[in-house]
Each structure stands twice: as structure tokens, then as C-alpha cells.
């Protein structure tokens, strides 16, 4: 038990550094035993086979590994898995219009495709998760460094989106498309509130 994603041959090799924890990933509960050095990103990719989040730098510098942990955008490569015992993790693949894992497209999935907001696709799942987290932060009225009036609700303009999405690098340079996709979904949200 506690060894999801690990073959019998390999179980014997894990001894000294192991810790047990529970992760809920896109609605499914996993009990697993991980090396204390294992990042949340490697736990997802190498142990649970969820390769939606990507490893672009492993140092929290590029944003490709961004996932939602308990609803907040998090760099999975800078998060040790053992520190997230009991957490709910949602990856880009698990996003949908309804609750995570309920199937179908999230509006950001569609907006990214329609705006051609990517080329190689490697940073894209992180961009999508980051956009979900960012729009939620925005809806809660959290200011950014470019927000002029800290007392008023921020406007979802290009400068706000660009500032809040700058933790996610895209070497293909799809930034204008990403901005357009996030703005479109953000505006739709505002229109429905």
C-alpha cells in the first residue's frame, strides 16, 4: 500500500527517505509514499503519471509547472510533495467548465486554441493554470504592482494581465495571444457577475 505508481521491483529500493501522504489530484485520491526530496511536480509526473504540468527549469523561474493547489496557483517544482499532504491538486488537464475533473472544456482551453495562444505547447498547461489562478485573484480584488488605485477594484486591462501573467515564460512568444485569451475569459466572467 501507499505505493501508487511504483512497480514491485522498485519498492525495495525506496527506504531511507520515504514519507507517506495523501494527494487528491483532479478529484481522485492517491495514497503514496515519496522520497522527501520529491517535488510535487515529480510526484505528479513520475509517480502518478500526470504529465500535464511540465518541467521547464525545476527552479521556479519559468512557470511551466504551475498547478492549482487548493485553488491557488502554485509552482509545483518548488513545492516538496510531503508539504502538501491532504491537498487538492488540479492540473490543466483536469480543468473543466464545472468542478475539476467533471469533463469538457474550461473556457480558457477554448480561448487559448481560438487565439492561437501557444506554439510548442510546453508552457501552455502552466499558462492555463496560472490564468485560472490569476483571474480568481483578480476577482477577489487583489491588487498588483501596476494597479493604480489600491482602494478601487482593479480593471482587467492589458497591463494588469501582462503583469500578473509574467511569471509564466513562453519562448515561442505567444504573449499577445495569451493576453487576448485571458482577457476574453476575464471579460466573460465580469459580464456574468
Amino acid at each position, binding site marked *: 500500500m501507499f505505493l501508487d505508481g511504483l512497480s514491485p521491483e522498485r519498492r525495495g529500493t525506496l527506504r531511507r527517505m520515504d514519507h507517506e501522504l495523501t494527494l487528491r489530484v483532479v478529484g481522485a485520491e492517491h495514497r503514496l509514499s515519496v522520497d522527501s526530496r520529491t517535488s510535487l511536480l515529480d510526484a505528479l509526473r513520475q509517480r502518478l503519471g500526470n504529465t500535464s504540468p511540465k518541467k521547464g527549469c*525545476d527552479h521556479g523561474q519559468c512557470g511551466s509547472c504551475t498547478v492549482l493547489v487548493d485553488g491557488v496557483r502554485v509552482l509545483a517544482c518548488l513545492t516538496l510533495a510531503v508539504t502538501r499532504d491532504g491537498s487538492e491538486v488540479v492540473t490543466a488537464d483536469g480543468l473543466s467548465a464545472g468542478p475539476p475533473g467533471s469533463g469538457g472544456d474550461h473556457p480558457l482551453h477554448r480561448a487559448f486554441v481560438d487565439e492561437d495562444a501557444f*506554439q510548442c505547447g510546453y508552457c*501552455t*498547461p502552466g499558462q492555463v493554470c496560472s490564468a485560472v489562478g490569476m483571474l480568481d485573484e483578480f476577482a477577489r480584488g487583489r491588487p498588483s504592482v501596476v494597479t493604480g488605485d489600491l482602494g478601487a477594484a482593479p480593471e482587467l486591462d492589458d497591463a494588469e494581465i501582462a503583469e500578473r501573467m509574467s511569471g509564466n515564460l513562453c519562448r515561442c*512568444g505567444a504573449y499577445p495571444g495569451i493576453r487576448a485569451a485571458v482577457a476574453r475569459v476575464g471579460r466573460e466572467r465580469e459580464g456574468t457577475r
Partner: protein
Amino acid sequence: MSETLEHRAIGADLPRRDGDRKVRGTAVYADESPAQDPVYCRIVQAPLARGRITSVDPAPAEAEDGVLAVLTPATAERLADTSDAEYAILQDDEVHFRGQIVAAVIAETFEQARYAADLVDVRYDEQPGDTLLSADRPDLYRPEQVETGAAPDTSEGDVDAAVAAGPARIQQTYTTPMLHNNPMEPHATTALWEPASHGGAGSLTLWDSTQGVHTVRETVYTVLGLDREQVRVVCPYVGGGFGSKGIPHQNVVTAAMAARAVPGRPVRLALTRQQTFSLAGYRPPTIQQVALAAGDDGRLTAIANDVVEQTSRVKEFAEQTVLPARTMYAAPNRRTSTRLAALDVPIPSWMRAPGECPGMFAPEVAMDELAHELGIDPIELRERNEPDTHPESGLPFSSRNLLACLRRGAEQFGWPDRDPLPGVRSHGGWWWGTGVAASVYPTMRMPVSEAEISRVDGRYVARIGATDLGTGTWTALVQIAADALGVAVDEVDVLIGDTDHPMASVAGGSSGINTWGSTLVAAAQEFRKRFGDTPADGDSARAGVPANEAAERYAMSAFGAQFAEVAVHADTGEIRVPRLYGTFAVGRVVNPRMARSQLVGGMTMGLGMALYENSLFDPRTGHVVNHDLAEYHVPTQADVADLRADWIDEHDPHVNAMGTKGIGEIGIVGTAAAVANAAWHATGTRVRDLPVTLDTVL
């Protein structure tokens, strides 16, 4: 061949066929290819620029939990062909550059491999590294040719006499730094050696992140001494390459060697971001001495670019920086030269528009300086020096719409009525300026590729071992095949990214669509010739890429014009680019949205070259000290403001059946010059050494 296709699907604004997989993260990249019980390989790198390994003790690593094998120069397999020294991995005790692979650890888990790699005890006899590029080195040499096969030097007339005669002249030295491609997906391979297959001789499967599966197979089977059929390379998706995955680098061969050390176990070898800075190639730094001379009428009498650049001592790479000066402008006296310094540095390789990109920065800034000296508008200066034929070969251009791009771009950008004076526009605490530069990229078609088209379950299935780096190949080739067959895109599937498909050229030199598209058109013609318009299931035809006879009669290039608006903060020197517009002439555009993304992406990387990117090389240690994405600054979302790409409607009947010229690289060519010229217009300070940073303009 002339443009022969009726365009119905070509030019359609279709979404990417792989879009859904990419936005969800279910597109499969090399490090996540399906593998039963994968093991992990971690490389050990030399921490010195030059020296000799005196001993390697793997025992501390081997004693760790989960460690399966440690490859060292003493234990690694002997390779069959090391004529390309980049692939002579673990074959002797020489250290040629800092970061060279000196050992590799294979372990059951990623964490175990990473930890154990630090325990491999390697001792060295360090020798002084020779790592510093300068134009004064006495040992500079002329390579036999530059990377394209072109001559390193050209000379016509007497440049020095023309420059002495003037009356207008520019003689300046410009430099571009070492730059790293930095695709978001670090180089990665999953490798499996199955000793019992292929009649007991064994077979090797590589799921590799590459710009050319067949290119990787050719290298790997040769280096390992296998039969070609023993090696299969699979790569449906690539997380960006920009040239750095154009040829296999040391990591790929190391992954293959590791797999052969643990038969039956899939080995995952993903370079770390830091490791890519010494192993995955880079754009070498250049020192360019440009001379321009012109009469008062603005007509150039001389153009010269004398280039000094570096290669590694272990393997020559001669960046074709001299090429743009041979193509852009008419002038009776002309000279280009290439001199290399062979240093104890990592091996340079391709980075987006190799040669063309750094080789346009210097001449296009020099043209801006000449325009100022003559008191002629920079666009007008280029109009007066537009050649009737290729300036060196004398061949007519198949199409050349540089001036159309400059004029259309000027109109869209709002260039007319520009005050040419530098350093006079200040408002809001910022100095404002605008700049322009030209873009160019040669139109290429590779000589080898093959495609097969078959009728399968009532659909047309084309197979070709091509690659999609994010460029849109999965979609664009469907559009071309549909038009070539005269059917709707819904009836066509195109399969790429696997050496089980016919041989295809590398995705490089902006040649992919030109080459693979021409191949698909030839295969479709063969298919229709043999089976007509009502083929039966199972009907199948193959064809190779046709040669382009027109290439002997015409010079072929894409052109463009880039316009930048720059704001420099009066107190801090912070440099912003509120607007960056590009207008291009790239032949037929197969898919507008994907073309725009590529051009915008190229310009964005050009913005990085202009303002941010600089691999800081410590000559004492041979080390790129800013070897990660926190310190090697690529443009971020907030750095890119109003950045647009557009194109003119260009019909070129000579380039290929589709009328395409290639668009992957031209977007980065000229961008840095446009930004640097705008920074001068804003501040009056001329920066000739990239990147343009706040300390250089204040």
C-alpha cells in the same frame, strides 16, 4: 517548378489540429513518453575549461540505494564512429570545455540519480583554458566554408579606396553576445535498448525532443555502429527548439549509451536548464567591423562586413554572419570575411536564423548611422540602394519585396513626418524614439525527403518523418496535402514525427514547409497519376522531393521591415518598447494564424536579443554564469506591449509548388537593429554592442 497548386486549403485560417492536446497538457513530449518502469540518468559535467581526467571513482555513487550503473570513460562502451568529436562521449580523458559530460549515473528514481551523480569522484589535471574571443588574437583563422557551405570571404572592387573617397562613410565595430536558445522544454530523451529484438542483434528506440527524427537516427546508428534499421526515433511533439534541437547533442548519444548499459529498462535523460547552457549549442558571439561608403546622393559605393567569431576547439562551427551583407544592398565595392577563434568553450550550434540574425544587426545599424550622416530618411536610403539583381551572384530575385514591406510598414506604423533628430522628444519623464531595420532570410529547400500517400478506410493518409516544433506542421501539411490531392482537409491525415515514416529533412533553415510540402505535392501527383480520382483502399504511392531547377536561375529570399518605438526613462534609463511592428514578404502563407504566431514569436525573441539576452561568460572558468531563466532574461509577458506582424500578398511562381518561402526565422532578423536604432533616436546615444541596456543609454 512553378507555383502549380490551386489554393483552397492553403491560406485557410484553421486552428491547430493538436490544439486541444496542448492546452490540456496531454500532448506527449520526450520525457513523458510511455515507458514501463523507467529509470533515470543524470550526467556529471566537467567543472573546468581544459584539462585531463586523472581518475574517476564511481564507488561512492554505486553504493547508493537504487543506483544501477555508473558510466565513466573506463566503463562506457567504445563507440564505432567518433569522427564528429561532439559525440566522442566518455571515450578518453580529455576535457575540451566546461560542462562536458565526464560520467553518467543511472538509478531507479530521479532523486537517487541526482544525488548519486554528485558522489561520483572525478579528479582532474587542470590546464589553463583559452576562452576569450577578441579581434586581436594572432591565431584567428579563415574556415574553409561557413555553415551553409558558402565561401567564408568575398571581395569585389576596392572597399578601402571607396571608403577613403567617401564623401559619406561609416566605419564601426559592432558586437553581438553569446546567446542561448532556451526552448521551454529542456533537451530530453527516453531511450530503450531491447537486446533480443531485431533477430537478436538488438534494437534501440529513442523518444527524443528533436527537430528531425531521421537526423537523430542517422547520427545515433553511425556513432553506435548499429544498422539503421536497429534504431527508431519517435517525436510527435517538441517543446521548442529554435535550432538547438536541430542536430543531436551529447545528451542524446549519452541516453543511448545509458540504455545499452541497462538492457530492457527505459532510461529517461532530461537535461536540467543549467546543463543546456553548455551542452545544447548556442549562438556564438560576433565582432563585426562594418564599412559603408556613399555619395551625397545616398548611393552606396562600398559595403563590407569583416567578422570575427568563435568556435570550439573540439568541433568547428562557422556561423554564416557574413551572408546578409552579400544580399541586401547594391554597391560596386564589396567585401566580407570570416575569421574564427578556436577556443576551449562549449560547442556553438544553430540558433534561430544563424548568421542572418547577428549579421543583420551590424549592417542595419550602420545603415541607420549613414542615413543620419547623409540627412536622408532611413527608408529612403534603402530605396536608393535597392539592387536590380542579387548584388553578388547577379541572378535576378525570384521575388523581392523589401521596399513594399518598408512602405506598407511605414504607413501602418506612422513613420511619415518623423522628426529625424535624435534625443529631442521628451514627455512624461521618458525619451521617445522610433527606428527601422530590414529583415531577410534565404528561401531553402532541402535535397532529401520522401513521402507516402495511401488510401486508408476511405481517407487519404500521408506519412512523412517531419517534425512540428510548434510551428504548426501537423496542420499546415494537411492543408498542403489536401490542395495537392484536390480534396477537403477533413479527408486527409498527415502522420509525422517517427522514423517509421519516410525520410524527411530536419526542421531547420525555415525549410520545413518548402521541403516537406514540395514532397507531399510530388507524392500526391504520383498517387493521382497511378490511381486517378477514385482510388481503392490500400492504393499507395511514394515520391521524393523534386529538385528546384529555378534555384539555378534565381536568387530566392524572403524580406521584411521592422519598426520599433522605444521609450527610455529619463532618470533610470529603463528601456521599454511600446510598439514593435513587422511587415514581411514571405511568399504564400499556408495558415495565417500560425504564420502570425511564428513571426510574432521571432520578433519577440529579437526583442530579447535587443534588450535582455546575454550569456555572461567567465573567461577564467569557461562558465556561463547566468545559466538559468532567472538570470538569462528572455522576454516576459510584461516586456511585450503592442507587438504585431503582418505580411504583403506575395506570389512567387519560382520557389515551389505552394509558393512558400519559410517563416520560422525571418521574424528575428533585423529586430535588434530596429530597437537599437529607435533607442538612438530616443536618446542620441548610439549603442553598437548588444544588448542595449540602461547603463549604455544613460
